[in-house]
């Protein structure tokens, strides 16, 4: 029984620097799920880019069900500098899990001083990007500690 799993959903978007779209930014994507899959693209004159989705077939026959844990990384190369534009861990095999089922459309700002963190349906993503997806609520664990019984 083969099951198609999405390792990285199709991502379209724009790369900005100080709010202005930047052309010719080299974007290198590395996906790791037991092995590295690397590809790259370059932003066009409008700062726009697209990475198409990457899938794998999860073949039957293994003895243990394996956790779905995929490392996603996009490094932006611009004028001799490197930026961690997207560093996520995909935890759901469905396509567009990174954006709760909607197409993944990002706006990235290389000039950000701090990396954004967002958990989306259990997948934690650190990035220089914003996209339309409600973040997972941050839990307050201190409220859930057990009482000191006996």
């Amino acid at each position: 029984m083969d099951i198609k799993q999405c390792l990285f959903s199709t991502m379209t978007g724009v790369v900005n620097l100080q709010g202005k779209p930047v052309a010719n930014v080299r974007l290198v994507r590395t996906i790791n799920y037991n092995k590295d899959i690397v590809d790259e693209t370059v932003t066009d004159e409008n700062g726009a880019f697209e990475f198409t989705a990457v899938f794998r077939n999860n073949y039957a026959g293994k003895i243990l069900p394996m956790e779905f844990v995929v490392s996603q990384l996009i490094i932006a190369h611009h004028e001799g500098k490197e930026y961690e534009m997207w560093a996520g861990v995909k935890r759901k095999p469905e396509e567009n899990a990174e954006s709760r089922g909607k197409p993944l459309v990002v706006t990235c700002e290389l000039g950000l001083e701090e990396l954004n963190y967002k958990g989306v349906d259990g997948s934690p993503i650190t990035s220089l990007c914003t996209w339309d997806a409600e973040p997972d609520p941050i839990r307050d664990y201190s409220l859930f500690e057990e009482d000191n019984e006996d």
Partner: protein
Amino acid sequence: MSRRSPQLTSDLAKDVYDISTAPTLNAALNILNIKYKGSFTFADSNLLNARTGGPAGIKISSAFGFVLLGQGALAGHAFILFRGTQLLADWLTNFNVAPARSDSGYLVHDGFNKSFNSMKPKLEEFRKILTKEKIKFVHCIGHSLGGALATLCANWLQNKYSTYLYTFGSPRVGLYDFSNYLTAEMTSKRIYRVYHKTDPVPMIPTWPFVHVPESGQDYWLPSPGVLPSPEYHAMDKYTTSVSTNSWGTLSGYREAHKDDIQIAQWLMEKTRATFSMNTLRWLGNALIYVLKKIKAIVSAQQITGQFTVMDHLAYVLAKGINLVEVLSNWVLLFIRKVMEILGLKPVEKSGELNKDFIRNMLSRLQAKINTQVEAALRYQV
């Protein structure tokens, strides 16, 4: 009691995968720092000293997981997190190996033990940090095969620290004596074994491996259906089922414990037993019931590591046959149930039983269970 909540421990069991898979150090630190709001730091000083902000993929953890030190309200607590790894899987259904001696001297699965021992040098380093940081409480946490490693880690540390063990969908780790020892030492108040009713992984390795805790409370979560269902092994199914419930609430899901009288009645039942998950649960309880009766009379045997696990069990049961009439009757009833489940005509008298015969029946049953579990696991999601 300094146990931590189901929500915190199940989230950590999930996040050990995320943090150890995160492609950059920043991404790993963000998961820890933002999600847990500064409640933890990594114990690995190499990690803390690692260059931050560098985009190069940083190997942020050792293969098994990592150690977190509690901050603020969690000062004095350390959390040792283990991730499941596919590398251990092949060992699970291979029983033609001698069991190995664990740190407490009791026999455990050789594959898990080897794997745990390979982590020892790293864990020894962490132990020095625990001493330096004046850690009092150690929480060993793991999902799947990581649960087996967390169990061995708790076994290793429990007489040095106030140790808590939390496992989610863990396979069985050791033989009866191991489980009995660790349960007695830690008590079930410090052992939190969480499993979905239909998760197939806790069904393996089959007997004579026995779960920890061997008796007392465990945390059985409902999942749909009656057949083994691999999707209920996934960690996110566990975090969802656990949700924000307390241990007290989760303990209420447990089906009623089979007490000794019920088990004895089941063994004596005239109706033929058939193969099902429910029958296997009964049989597992009955095995422990019979073993306890034998152990109460037979002094602790020096079983060498040269026995395979099946030899060990057959040896102990055969011992019971030879000792006292009342024991041999319980062994006979147990073997009769095994034969019924196998679709064989049960033997009538204990005189027909000897070690080889018992071993043969147990091996056939084990082969049957393995076939069923493997078939279920092939339909993985």
